[in-house]
């Protein structure tokens, strides 16, 4: 084999462009969405003015103001809860499960019918790539309504409520900005299926798809007051969860706010579910399917700009393959396309808000200051809007703040380990316990590690997979209760 395979077959003389295969812009059309200049609150089946000071929601990719949105004050919250109570007493609790199911199926269908519109609107308001809103968020939203629709008339088989489960009443639900519509579905679908009515507050930076969902409720002829959407910030949320006529509080968001809510509902009969922060370990053993592990790491931390509570933000890699794995990871990161969320080829979109961008910058600066080594692939960030490049920190130890605190951005901390026991110990060495990943081709090791990880979701040889049938939720300070699957019913039944 003296001859090296470097001889050109010389089939053509044409030169390749110096920059190779440049993908031309492939923007998804914005014309499908109709954003109004201002939005009211959706209470008792109608859009009404809010008593608070209206606020603006912006496109984080451009900083363009999209709309003005009403802020619900305490009186508005009260009106919404009253509407929900009335709908519960007069209509929804009297409806058979079979009839409730049909409303939920209708909603699922309308979501499918208007899926592209929802996806585009989600990307505009949130900054996430259209690829994700189109292929992940919105399809799972529809699936979630489909799944729970089917439960509505089968609750006596759920195992909850001693064979005769009953709804709780009015659910007050507060959701975050990272998956605005998906979190809405996770909250509303099981609540309605179980016979509750809801008052839901979307995050102040991403209210638009929830307000479009309100229109979908109208199209579905959902009885007035069964779903109420109130917009606002922390104060509105506080008023909702502490409202005395709310029977159930469901919250997804930061651990700090989750604790405040847990204190607020203490001593009441309110049932509480909390989906909070995380600092998930993604453990890669030396016998991992390496190329898929690299994909899993990338999905784990760069999916949705890292604005994911279950993000695999701590890579724990076996020391013997650390160098090779990092080389592959960096090469892969160099192919990530950061930019216009509406471009169909964008992998990483905009950071959701100036505030979040500031936090990511701040914690990254702490990483630098603590002596970790920062690396990002060369990438041009747009002039306007909020952007942060995909970033990894190597040389991180458990003592670093970037290994302990949730950054909630596209920033990965890389740590190494030597033995399975050390990997588990480091993985569990956190107050959080939402998710974890483990990569190895050895089956018995997967089962052992999965057993030992103190986390509510363990992805083995995969990461960041979601499904309506699969319960999701954390151990320890990552929250209480589960959403999704049969388990997701428990929080809405007595």
């Amino acid at each position, binding site marked *: *084999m003296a*001859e*090296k*395979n*470097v*001889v*050109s*077959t*010389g*089939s*053509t*003389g*044409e030169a*390749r*462009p110096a920059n*190779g*295969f*440049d*993908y*031309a*812009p*492939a923007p998804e059309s914005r014309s499908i969405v109709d954003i109004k200049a201002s939005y009211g609150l959706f209470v008792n089946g109608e859009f009404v003015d809010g008593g608070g000071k209206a606020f603006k929601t912006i496109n984080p990719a451009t900083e363009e103001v999209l709309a003005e949105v009403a802020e619900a004050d305490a009186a508005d919250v009260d009106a919404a809860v009253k509407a929900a109570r009335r709908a519960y007493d007069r209509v929804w609790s009297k409806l058979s499960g079979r009839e409730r199911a049909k409303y939920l199926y209708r909603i699922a269908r309308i979501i499918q019918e208007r899926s592209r519109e929802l996806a585009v609107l989600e990307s505009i308001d949130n900054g996430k790539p259209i*690829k994700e809103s189109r*292929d992940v968020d919105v399809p799972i939203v529809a699936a979630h309504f489909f799944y729970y629709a089917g439960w509505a008339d089968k609750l006596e088989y759920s195992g909850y409520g001693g064979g005769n489960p009953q709804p709780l009443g009015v659910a007050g639900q507060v959701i975050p900005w990272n998956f605005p519509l998906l979190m809405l579905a996770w909250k509303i679908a099981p609540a309605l299926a179980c016979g509750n009515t809801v008052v839901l507050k979307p995050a102040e930076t991403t209210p638009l798809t929830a307000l479009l969902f309100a229109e979908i409720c109208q199209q579905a002829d959902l009885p007035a007051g069964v779903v109420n959407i109130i917009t606002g910030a922390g104060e509105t949320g506080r008023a909702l969860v502490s409202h005395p006529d709310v029977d159930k509080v469901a919250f997804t968001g930061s651990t700090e706010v989750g604790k405040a809510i847990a204190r607020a509902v203490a001593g009441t009969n309110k049932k509480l579910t909390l989906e909070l922060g995380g600092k998930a370990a993604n453990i890669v053993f*030396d*016998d*991992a*399917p*390496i*190329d*898929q592990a690299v*994909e*899993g790491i990338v999905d784990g931390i760069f999916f949705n700009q890292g604005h994911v509570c279950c993000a695999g933000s701590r890579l724990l890699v*076996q020391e*013997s*393959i650390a*160098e*090779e794995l990092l*080389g*592959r990871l960096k*090469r892969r990161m160099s*192919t990530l396309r950061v930019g216009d969320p509406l471009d*169909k*080829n964008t992998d990483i979109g905009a950071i959701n808000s100036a505030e979040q961008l500031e936090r990511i910058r701040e914690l990254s600066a702490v990483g630098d200051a603590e002596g970790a080594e920062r690396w990002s692939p060369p990438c041009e960030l747009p002039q306007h809007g909020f952007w942060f490049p995909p970033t990894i920190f190597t040389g991180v130890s458990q003592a670093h703040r970037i290994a302990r605190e949730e950054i909630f951005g596209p920033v990965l901390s890389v740590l190494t380990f030597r033995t399975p026991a050390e990997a588990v110990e480091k993985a569990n060495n956190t107050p959080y316990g939402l998710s974890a990943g483990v990569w190895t*081709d050895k089956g018995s090791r997967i089962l052992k590690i999965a057993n030992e990880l103190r986390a509510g979701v363990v992805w083995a*040889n*995969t990461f960041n997979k979601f499904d309506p049938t699969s319960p999701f939720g954390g151990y320890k300070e990552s929250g209480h209760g589960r959403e999704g699957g049969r388990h997701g019913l428990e929080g809405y039944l007595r």
Partner: protein
Amino acid sequence: MLGLMASSPTTDAPPTGARGQGWDYSDVTRSEATLRRFLHGLPGVDQVGADARAAALGTRSIKTTAKAFAIDLAIRMVDLTTLEGADTAGKVRALASKAMRPDPSDPTCPATAAVCVYPDMVATARRTLGTSGVHVAAVATAFPSGRAALDIKLADTRDAVEAGADEIDMVIDRGAFLSGRYLQVFEEIVAVREACARPNGPSAHLKVIFETGELQTYDNVRRASWLAMMAGGHFIKTSTGKVQPAATLPVTMIMLEAVRDFREATGQMVGVKPAGGIRTSKDAIKYLVIVNEVAGTDWLDPDWFRFGASTLLNDLLMQRTKMRTGRYSGPDYFTLD
């Protein structure tokens, strides 16, 4: 970075940090045992993850200038193929003419990379193609099953080379591979490569066909890729086109990972050829996206990536015309060969 995990149970893995260095793998291939240890020490491929990655790359949206670039590149990468029992000299001449001038109405349309025929048709193809630059590729070694004695396979190869083949597409002995006789497969590839030598001219280039539809697992595809690369294949090729499934996106992706990693380890570049089942421009573009993002731009060249196809070419031409004229074209406007 290296193509091998440091945890590989063999000590034959290339040393860490040997990026682009000429890694001497003769120790690996010196015995059945060492070769097996090496191949089985390659990192596993998780099928679901690999499928998902290939599918995700398939959702890239290639428009306007990028699409025009991709279509012309794809045409230049086609090994225009006829491998039928009913092949005649007339059929092969027509095919060769089309390979040189795929769109007679448009002189800017590039030629294909090669025509691919059975060995007995090589001379005919060679005469028609002349000095056009379009290569003649011949399937040899008892294609497609490979079920013949080694000397017959070698004679088949030499015949094709003598008749003027620039490229030989051989099939591996899948039976030997699946029963774990890796060294036999290796030695056969080495022997065929030697048979590609031309006494008074450049050797024919060797493409090694795995028939991935028969190997079934991606682990096998990865092992076959390394085995063929170490044996000196210039190209690794998915399929004969006679077995379903033929080329698929994930299988091609696994092979592109292998050539990428092999170059990292040895400095040697090997080409990849998916063959069979690629019929539309849309499919071809998905393959090019995978080449671009998995192996890198160096492979975006007919020297390093080919499509084994027949009907694909007309679809590429129709799309090309659509790009040029702005209206959809129809099959009546392209030659059927």
